[in-house]
């Protein structure tokens, strides 16, 4: 028996000794990043999530790119110059932009880049404009409309659905010429090739136009016209362009194919393993990446990701804040930080749908709230005073976040730390509640339900903190916090049944308009969810200011305009800006050259980093 144990021990130690020593760099020219999920689609004109944008931004290139870590300075990419007023490439008071196109650039299939490719790329995207896609940004910037269908309906005078059926066929031949004319009159002349240049004609000055074009904005990526046409995308003709509008995601051949000019080529997107593999483009016109291969791999289970980082089989992993302490002590692992331009805020629904389950009795009788409960400014102010912002950031976000005065994140024009913010002050909250609904609210009390989508622990805690504080003011105040699955939440949100909702926004382009319009304009994505009474308020007090601010080109005057909008938002307690999170990036210490840019959709600058101990 003893001899047996000795042999067993020897075998055990022999096995241990053949294990790799962890200090050495594993897979030196391959980078493995473990994320959660995988891209939604690789069609640049459909993709609208960071996982897709990450892949697209290394395979495709745009006309210009952000300079290093800056979000306000640009460097040329496929254009040879960044247009400015000084170099004469921005003309007509900001309505014309000229881009000289780089020569000698090759697509991954060997085709040469031409100015026609640039014109085609933008026109295809605008005509395609899928319902859940990002193309509204360019349509707004170039034409001042929100969707292509609105634009067409306005110019042709007939709603889109009356002219074209779901398959993209004309419902009547009489519309053929009208739609052809629409393309020839309104789309084609706006983006034009002039010699080696591509010229954009905007309908009005649009301050963030260059940001919308910059690298990382997949919607402005440059495609190869010849490849696209041969794959079955829009053929470049005026006749029949409507057949290529609003395809379902899976119908686009670019869904899984990606042929760009970028520093990496798409080797494969293995959807059974949620894995994207990129390989270095050896023909790249610019500086060659040091990595030969990049693997972006969806590993949904946190413990698995952590173990693989610890073993050195992964170079970088996605780490939710609540697990940060588990990686901090691992030798050879570093945590780097950066703030994306993103905001999380609580907003109120001023006119909740009458059939909502979350209003209790639906009356101001202590057993519920009336649908227009939050249209009283005192209620909104009382809520704003009743949240402990600093404790939330310190405890729940573990210090990885900032307070902000409005929905403009720090780092953007219009942000001003010294703008007024509601302090956490229960005395003032009490005063406001006593004033609300002519004092009736304080006497009768209320009951309402706050929803959060399950799995989002930060939002859950925020709701619970608010509940605790408000209920402590008056025993007749009751708030129920309820977690629901995302589909249920989405349903209630869309039907206008939520009395209040916590929702975030990540910048599409680094400009205050992107946030101010979204939350405060009556047509903004979240503006429309705040009820009829809010929309009326915005139309009277905010819309004109917001629309004026976007046309202003002088930064000092724009700053003042946005500060004015933010003051209105503060005085009327339009919402509770909760925090701007700071994000953590967890990687092996052998990752060198890693750099952060707030507008980068992905986790690393794969074209600049290398591995070295």
């Amino acid at each position, binding site marked *: 028996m003893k001899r047996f144990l000795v042999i067993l021990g020897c075998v055990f130690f022999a096995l241990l000794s053949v294990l*790799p020593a962890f200090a050495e760099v594993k897979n030196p020219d391959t980078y493995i990043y473990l994320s959660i999920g995988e891209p939604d689609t690789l069609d640049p004109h459909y993709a609208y999530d960071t996982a897709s944008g990450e892949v697209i931004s290394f395979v495709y290139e745009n006309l210009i790119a952000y300079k290093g870590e800056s979000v306000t300075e640009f460097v040329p990419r496929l254009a040879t110059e960044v247009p400015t007023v000084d170099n004469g490439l921005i003309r007509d008071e900001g309505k014309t932009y000229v881009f000289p196109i780089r020569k000698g650039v090759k697509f991954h299939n060997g085709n040469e880049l031409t100015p026609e490719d640039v014109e085609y790329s933008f026109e295809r995207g605008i005509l395609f404009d899928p319902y859940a896609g990002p193309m509204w940004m360019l349509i707004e910037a170039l034409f001042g409309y929100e969707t292509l269908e609105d634009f067409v309906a306005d110019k042709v005078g007939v709603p889109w659905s009356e002219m074209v059926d779901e398959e993209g066929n004309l419902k009547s031949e009489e519309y053929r010429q009208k739609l052809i004319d629409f393309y020839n009159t309104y789309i084609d002349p706006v983006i034009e090739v002039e010699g080696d240049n591509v010229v954009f004609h905007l309908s009005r000055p649009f301050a963030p136009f260059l940001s919308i074009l910059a690298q990382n904005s997949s919607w402005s990526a440059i495609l190869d016209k010849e490849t696209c046409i041969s794959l079955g995308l829009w053929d470049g003709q005026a006749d029949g362009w409507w057949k290529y509008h609003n395809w379902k995601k899976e119908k686009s051949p670019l869904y899984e194919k990606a042929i760009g000019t970028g520093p990496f080529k798409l080797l494969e997107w293995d959807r059974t393993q949620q894995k994207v593999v990129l390989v270095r483009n050896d023909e790249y016109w610019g500086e060659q990446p040091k990595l030969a291969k990049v693997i972006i791999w969806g590993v949904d*289970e946190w*413990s*698995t990701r952590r*173990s693989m980082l610890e073993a050195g089989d992964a170079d970088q992993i996605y780490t939710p804040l609540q697990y940060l302490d588990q990686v901090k002590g691992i030798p050879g692992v570093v945590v780097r930080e950066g703030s994306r331009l993103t905001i999380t805020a609580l907003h109120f629904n001023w006119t909740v749908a009458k059939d909502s389950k979350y209003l209790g009795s639906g009356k101001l009788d202590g057993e519920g709230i009336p649908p227009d409960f939050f249209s009283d400014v005192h209620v909104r102010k009382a809520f704003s005073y009743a949240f402990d912002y600093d404790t939330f950031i310190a405890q729940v976000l573990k210090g990885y976040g900032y307070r902000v005065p409005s929905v403009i994140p720090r780092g953007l024009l219009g942000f001003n730390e010294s703008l007024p913010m509601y302090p956490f002050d229960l005395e003032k909250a009490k005063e406001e509640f006593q004033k609300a609904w002519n004092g009736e609210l304080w006497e009768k009390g209320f009951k309402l339900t706050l929803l959060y989508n399950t799995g989002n622990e930060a939002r859950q805690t925020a709701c619970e903190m608010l509940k605790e504080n408000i209920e402590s003011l008056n025993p007749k105040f009751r708030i129920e916090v309820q977690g629901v699955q995302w589909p249920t939440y989405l349903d209630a949100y869309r039907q206008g049944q939520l009395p209040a909702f916590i929702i975030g926004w990540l910048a599409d382009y680094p400009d205050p308009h992107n946030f101010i319009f979204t939350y405060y304009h009556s047509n903004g994505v979240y503006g429309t969810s705040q009820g009829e009474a809010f929309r009326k308020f915005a139309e009277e007090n905010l819309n004109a200011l917001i629309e004026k601010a976007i046309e202003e080109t002088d930064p000092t005057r724009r700053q003042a305009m946005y500060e004015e909008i933010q003051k209105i938002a503060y005085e009327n307690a339009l919402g509770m800006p909760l925090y701007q999170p700071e994000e953590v990036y967890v990687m092996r210490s052998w990752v060198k050259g890693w750099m952060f840019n707030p507008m980068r959709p992905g986790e690393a600058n794969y074209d600049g980093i290398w591995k070295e101990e």
Partner: protein
Amino acid sequence: MLEPHGDCSPHGVSLTLMIFYILRRLLFLPLTLFGISLLLFLMIGLLGPYQRLATFINSPERLKGADVDKLVELYGLNDPLIIQYGRWLKNVLRGNLGWSYVGKEPVLSAILKRFPYTLELTLFAAIPIIFLGTSLGVLAALNHNRPLDHGLRIFAVVGWSFPDFVFGLFVLMIFYGTLGWFPPGNLSVWAEEIVKSPYFRNFTGMLTLDALLNGRLDVFLDALRHLAGPVLTLTYVEFAFLLRITRSSMLEVLRKEYVRTARAKGLDERVVIHKHAKRNALIPVATVSGQTVIGLLAGTVIVETIFNRTGLGSFIALASQQLDYASIMGGTLFFGLILVIGNLCVDLSYALIDPRVRLE
């Protein structure tokens, strides 16, 4: 029983009966599947159109830019249920199971690509489960009420009551985190490069088998190394049931008259146990093992997630979370098919093992 060279007269009847039996079971298959699909569709249909839109807008971040009401219209989520079901059924009859938003490819190809991984894992897990379950079960029965019997039963019950996600994490932390032996995933980076290269032919989709058929022993060993963790987890969590069945069946047989007769004849104890007792005791066990293997198919959900092996189980779990009805329906039909065919095979094998069934 399906012995073509057998003695014709007594077996002829049973053969015809057997074929009739199989045919009848197979004829019921489409009907069963139709019933399942209708039931499922009605259940999904009870949810509102905006709830089902979660398939397309799967997180708060996706709300931006989405024209929600137009999406509802585009995907026909607001149409009457019967029209939606008819649309789905029409496509299925044409061989089109629809598009999987979770798998990001057509449902059928998503399933067919994932199934070999799950099947491979199941088969590899089945070997130790059946072997350990039966042999330890016999061992426990032979040592009835002795310390070994108690020890084995405690060991088994502990495994049986372990949730697989807890035990799976232990295995991952010890055998990968600390020892570095059994990494998660399907293959190492280098092995995957070989498998994805044009020289490597995919015959079955099962990595170990394909590696052997391509003559790549290194890839085979790498695939085994990646299988070890999940197999170990499944084995410990699942083998207890077989152990208990074997043990009680064996105990019962050991008390039978013919065992006593065999012993009384003065037969060697080993012959008595292995030839007379064990063979008879294993008949019910065979049925149970068949069902265990089929059940394992579903049991791989958690293990696949923990060890990051994307297979069919985790695919359907994800589809249900996102209400991706095409994937749910397709996946369920496929599982239904496997289950019905699997059970048929179990029934047939039962006849194969037990002569009393064969001659009926």
